[in-house]
Every structure is written in structure tokens, then in C-alpha cells.
């Protein structure tokens, strides 16, 4: 990986011919203002040079007085961020879609369309992404002068179709209320016998409108609002937001507070991965493993409760520091708890890596090669299980991660089994880091004074949440309320991999495949996509189907012929 300066220089060279203006707002950022018509050409140049990936697309309404919308395309390579700034008129703006280069762009662009009314040409599906199906036309909730609440009163939801034939396909609907889902989402799998031929997902059941709400609350209130984007990775959201606001305010958090934040982050990662292990085991039919991993997760929940006073939304952060200190007694308890976790995780690693019946459900399921994973732009443990070395904690260490670094965990196999392995190894790594922090906890104050009004400017903070890269963009206008808060959560990057991988797999493999990315609906709730296999219709005789079924069950070594 190249250094940040080299990467930015390279980007500046590559984009020189398209740039109307360039700026360096932060040492690791390059802002390039380009014309909307040059967007595809500029993105193609970066894509050809293999410079990073499209991490997020932020729309910013400059308001009726500014008479424009800015679309910001954030590309990341290691710690370097290159942002394309495209200025568009407030109504009737249009940009070309980048989804042929970056498949994930599809979701970001549909968000731009739905929230700001920017037309995106070349987009196959332009139906609603997060808003309800019956949302009134021409109302774009992130435009500042739109009364979204009044418009919403007129919105209704339409019901998804019933199970059955649709044309020549048989559709198996799952959700929004389904025993396998603890959160609502609606999936439609087209099947040909047991084979999945198409996959479609409709989310938005838990879209609440947090980005708009954040513009109407002050910085301190927002800390508690963003914590409730997701109850599982609540610390990640609050910490990422706090990092962005502290950057804007020019406040440096003390090393002690940074270390405590990192410790809570590591504890959160352990509880989140154990939670995931249980859910994934449940989806694959291993109920006992589900019960065991959730029982052991309680050890971490107890520690979090002792540290912060709450089991789930810990509110460990305040702007400028943390709320609590780590006493020697709690430190001793944490060490003891981690001993249990380490021992149990060794057992889980053994179960998930050596048990034949478990491997039959995970080995070779949903395999994604490194090139595929890179091309799809997946993040977090899903990317690392496919050999993509992408981890913000090592790429762009933030907060305490510079002082207490983590080792990146990568596995090349790319299948479901590898995702189990990577997450289990990350539990060991997190536990090692927590011990290192407890051994070398720096002395100092817990908080630094923060101004109530935050100076005007914009900041981007990237954070490695348990599910992958989380990106916050915060724009301030000098008041005590942010002008724009953009949240790009990791789950939205990973959905595409499920949809691509479900097609062509067995229907029975779909639940573990879905669970494999550890989807978080409340985080990402913002998309719908359709995916069709490249091949034409295939006609199978009974004999073919029987042979397929037989060969499928023979896949594992346990089966006796």
C-alpha cells in the first residue's frame, strides 16, 4: 500500500485534466471540483489506475440561497480520501451513473435521487430505496425547504406480493416478519427447483429519517441520536460522529479518553461477533451453538454494564472525551472476563473449523474471490475473509489505534467458513488489544472542553465498526446545529455480495449466506435491487433434478454413498 501523500499526489495527477479546482482541507484529503459531464471520465481514470474504491456519495443541499446541490463522491485508498465535488442545480440536476465501474454506486445514487431529486442516468431501477412505496412524487426530504413531515402524512405503504408464480418464475418471499429475521426486510427469491435464479430485496421498513433529524438537533443531542442508528454497534456510530465533530472544533481528545474509547470499541466488537456467531449458527440450524455463544456474550455485556452503566446503548462518548474512568477493580474483572472469552472462542473456532456437519453448511458456500470482493466494494470481515486487506484500524488509525495498534486478520478462502474464521480471530485480537490498553492506560483527564458552536467546515471520519467501514460526513455552518450529517454504514456495502452470491446457490444456503455478512437493517435501511443471472432459462428434467439433489447431498464427506 502506498503512503497517503503518494496516493494523493497520484490522484491529483490523474485527475488534473478534469479538475476545475483542487483543495486540501485535511492532510489526508483532496477535494477536486469537476463538471457533471466529466464525472464518468474522471471516475474511469481512477478506476483504471486502481486507485481506491467508491466509499460513499454525499448529497449536500446548499439551500435556496445557495441555489445548488453538491454531490460529493468520496473515494478512499488507505487513509487517503479523494472527493469529487459536482455542483448541480437544485431542480432538474442530472449525473451519470457510476454503477458499471463501482457496483455499490447503484445504492448511493438511488439515495441521491430519492433524497435530493437528482436524476441519475443509466440507473436500471429507480423505485424507492428507503422511503415508503406510496411516498408522494416530487418531495425530496433532504432538501432544506421541504416539509418532509407534511409530505410524509400523505405517504402509504404497499404490500409485497404473495408467494407463488410470477410469469414463469416461482417466487419465495421472506419477510418482513419472518422467524429467521430479527429485523424487518423483504426478500424475494425466484427459484427453479432448489436453485435460486434471482434475488431481490426491499428494505426501508426501519428507515426513520435520521439524517434529516440530525439537521434539526444540536451537536450534543445528535450524539445520542446517532447512537440509536444501531443498537449493536452504538459505540461505533457515536465515536465516529464524535471524531468528526472534534475534528471540526479542532479539539484533541486526551490519550486516556482515546484509549478508553478504543477499549469499548474492542468490547463491542467481541459482543457483536459473538452475537453474529449465534445468529449465523441459528440460520444454519445449529441451535446449541447459538445458545452457547449468547450465553458467553453475557460476560461482555456484564463488563460493558459495569463500565458504562448500560448493556446496549452505552453512551460512552461525550463530545471531547468519555464519560467514565477505568478503575483497577473493573480492570481486573475485564481481564478475568477476557480469559473466559478467549477460552470459549478457542472452542468455537474448533467447532466452526473442524466439525464436519458444520463445514458442510459453510465450506464452499457463497465463495467470493479477492477480485470479486474488491470489485464489489465490500467492507469489513466479509472483505477480509476474501483476502482484501481493508481495515480502517490499520489503514488510517484513528483515536487510540495509533498507540495500541491491532493486527489485521485476513483469510484467502472467501467462503462462509472463512467469514467465521476471520470473526473468531478478530475476537482474539480485540481481547489482546484490550489487555494491552489495560496494561498501558495513559494518565490524564477524561474530557476536554468543547465549544457549543462548532466552527464552519466539513469533516469526514472513517471508523471500523464490527461490520466494516463506517463513514461519517459532518458539515458545520458555525451554529450549534450541523448543516448536514451523512452516515454511510457498512451493511449497505455488503448487501450486493449476498444478492450476487445467492443467485445460483441452493435455497437452503440462502439463510446462512444472508447471515454471513452480518446484515444490520437498522443501520443500512436504504435499498432495493434486482439481480438476474447472466444465463438464459434452463430446462431441467426430473432426472437432472434428482442427480443435482444427489450430488448436492454428497458434497460433504460425512454422507455415505
Amino acid at each position, binding site marked *: 500500500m502506498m503512503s497517503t501523500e503518494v496516493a494523493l499526489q497520484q490522484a491529483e495527477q490523474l485527475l488534473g485534466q478534469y479538475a476545475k479546482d483542487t483543495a486540501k482541507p485535511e492532510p489526508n484529503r483532496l477535494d477536486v471540483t469537476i463538471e457533471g459531464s466529466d464525472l464518468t471520465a474522471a471516475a474511469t481514470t481512477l478506476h483504471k489506475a486502481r486507485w481506491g474504491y467508491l466509499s460513499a456519495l454525499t448529497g449536500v443541499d446548499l439551500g435556496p440561497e445557495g441555489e445548488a446541490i453538491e454531490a460529493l463522491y468520496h473515494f478512499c485508498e488507505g487513509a487517503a480520501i479523494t472527493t469529487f465535488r459536482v455542483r448541480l442545480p437544485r431542480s432538474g440536476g442530472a449525473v451519470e451513473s457510476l454503477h458499471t465501474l463501482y457496483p455499490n454506486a447503484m445504492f448511493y445514487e438511488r439515495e441521491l435521487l430519492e433524497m435530493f431529486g437528482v436524476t441519475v442516468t443509466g440507473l436500471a431501477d429507480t423505485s424507492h430505496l428507503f422511503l415508503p412505496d406510496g411516498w408522494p412524487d416530487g418531495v425530496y426530504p433532504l432538501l432544506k425547504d421541504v416539509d418532509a413531515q407534511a409530505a410524509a402524512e400523505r405517504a402509504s405503504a404497499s404490500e409485497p406480493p404473495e408467494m407463488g408464480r410470477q410469469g414463469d418464475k416461482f417466487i419465495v418471499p421472506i419477510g418482513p416478519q419472518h*422467524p429467521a429475521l430479527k429485523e*424487518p426486510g423483504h426478500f424475494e427469491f425466484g427459484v427453479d427447483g432448489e436453485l435460486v435464479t434471482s434475488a431481490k430485496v426491499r428494505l426501508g421498513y426501519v428507515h426513520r429519517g435520521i439524517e434529516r433529524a440530525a439537521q434539526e438537533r444540536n451537536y450534543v443531542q445528535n450524539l445520542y441520536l446517532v447512537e440509536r442508528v444501531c443498537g449493536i454497534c452504538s459505540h461505533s456510530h457515536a465515536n465516529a460522529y464524535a471524531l468528526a465533530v472534534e475534528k471540526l472544533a479542532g479539539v484533541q481528545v486526551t490519550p486516556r479518553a482515546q484509549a478508553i474509547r478504543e477499549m469499548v470499541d474492542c468490547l463491542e466488537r467481541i459482543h457483536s461477533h459473538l452475537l453474529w456467531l449465534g445468529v449465523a449458527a441459528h440460520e444454519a440450524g445449529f441451535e446449541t451453538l447459538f445458545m452457547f455463544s449468547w450465553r458467553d456474550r453475557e460476560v461482555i455485556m456484564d463488563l460493558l454494564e459495569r463500565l458504562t452503566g448500560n*448493556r*446496549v*446503548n452505552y453512551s460512552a462518548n461525550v463530545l471531547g472525551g468519555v464519560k467514565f474512568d477505568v478503575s483497577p477493580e473493573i480492570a481486573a474483572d475485564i481481564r478475568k472476563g477476557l480469559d473466559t472469552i478467549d477460552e470459549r472462542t478457542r472452542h468455537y473456532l474448533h467447532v466452526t473449523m473442524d466439525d464436519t456437519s458444520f463445514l458442510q453448511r459453510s465450506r464452499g458456500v457463497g465463495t467470493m474471490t479477492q477480485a470479486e470482493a474488491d470489485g464489489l466494494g465490500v467492507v469489513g470481515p466479509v472483505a477480509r475473509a476474501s483476502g482484501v486487506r481493508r481495515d480502517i484500524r490499520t489503514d488510517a488509525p484513528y483515536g487510540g489505534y495509533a498507540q495500541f495498534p491491532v493486527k489485521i486478520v485476513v483469510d484467502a478462502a472467501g467462503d462462509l467458513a472463512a467469514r467465521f474464521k476471520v470473526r473468531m480471530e478478530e475476537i482474539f485480537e480485540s481481547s489482546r488489544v484490550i489487555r494491552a490498553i489495560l496494561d498501558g492506560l495513559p494518565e490524564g483527564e477524561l474530557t476536554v472542553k468543547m465549544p457549543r458552536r462548532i466552527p464552519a467546515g466539513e469533516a469526514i471520519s472513517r471508523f471500523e465498526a464490527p461490520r466494516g467501514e463506517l463513514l461519517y460526513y459532518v458539515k458545520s455552518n458555525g451554529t450549534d446545529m450541523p448543516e448536514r450529517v451523512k452516515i454511510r454504514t457498512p451493511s449497505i456495502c455488503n448487501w450486493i455480495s449476498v444478492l450476487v452470491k445467492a443467485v445460483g446457490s441452493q435455497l437452503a444456503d440462502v439463510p446462512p449466506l444472508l447471515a454471513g455478512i452480518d446484515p444490520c437493517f437498522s443501520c443500512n435501511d436504504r435499498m432495493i435491487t434486482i439481480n438476474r443471472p447472466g444465463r438464459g432459462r434452463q430446462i431441467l428434467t426430473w432426472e437432472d433434478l434428482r442427480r443435482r439433489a444427489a450430488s448436492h447431498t454428497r458434497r460433504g464427506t460425512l454422507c455415505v454413498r
Partner: protein
Amino acid sequence: MSVKADSIWTESLDKIKLWARVNSPWAIHYNSGSCNGCDIEIVATLTPRYDLERFGIKLKGSPRHADVLICTGPVTRQSRDRLKRIYEQMPDPKFVVAVGSCATSGGVFQGCYNVVGHIDEVIPVNAYIPGCPPRPEAIIDGVVKLLTSLLPAKAEK
């Protein structure tokens, strides 16, 4: 004579039904816009530390099998109709438990454009369990309180 025999029969049947209902209620869970915090605590109640099943409470997959609907989160516009539909699919008598601050009052999401409001603006609620999120013990306590409230005679003793 026959009338009296009938009433004895229905009375005893009602007693048996109430006994069964209180001792083994089946529950269904629906998240209508929650942040996940309450949902993971509800799942935690099923796992060995809290073990909800010792009260005979079992989480079911289908609303048609359920007596108790455990709701989390504020109601978003997209999930409002689905919440109503799930409620309507449940056989009578049915009970609704609103878990968490958002389900009881809208919580931090009060005023968000895609949020209709709290659960009882959409369907009737029998028990409210506040907290952000409530602890698993609080959820179990709420459900058990709801069930014991069905036994008025017992409460008087």
C-alpha cells in the same frame, strides 16, 4: 337442568383455557422501526442466562400461532400496514407488549419524517416496558405481569 350442566362445562373449560394461556403463552416479535437494541435484548431473554422458556413462553414464527405480540421501535410508515396485518392475523384473545422507549413514546425518533409514532397509535397495547433498551429482566417482568393480570382472583388473595 341442562342449562346448568352447560354452564358448569363452559366454566370449567374457561378455567382450563385461562390456565393454559397463562402458563404457556406463545409470543411473536416484530420490529417496526427499532434500532436493534431492544431486539437483541429480546433475543437475549431466550438464551441460557435469562431463559424465558422457563415461564412457558415460547417465541413463534407465525402470528397465527401467537398470543402475545412483542413490538419494538417506533412505527415507520413502511411498516405500519404490516404491523396492523400481523396484529389482525393473530387469533383472539391477543395481547400486545410494547418494548422500549420508542415503542412506548417514539423515543429519540419523535418527529422524524418517516415515523408515524409509538405502537399504540397503530394497534392497542396491553403492557408498556420502558427503557432504552429495557434489560432482559425487565422484559420478562413485563410479560409475566401482563399474564398474571389475567388472573384477578389470584391478585386479591
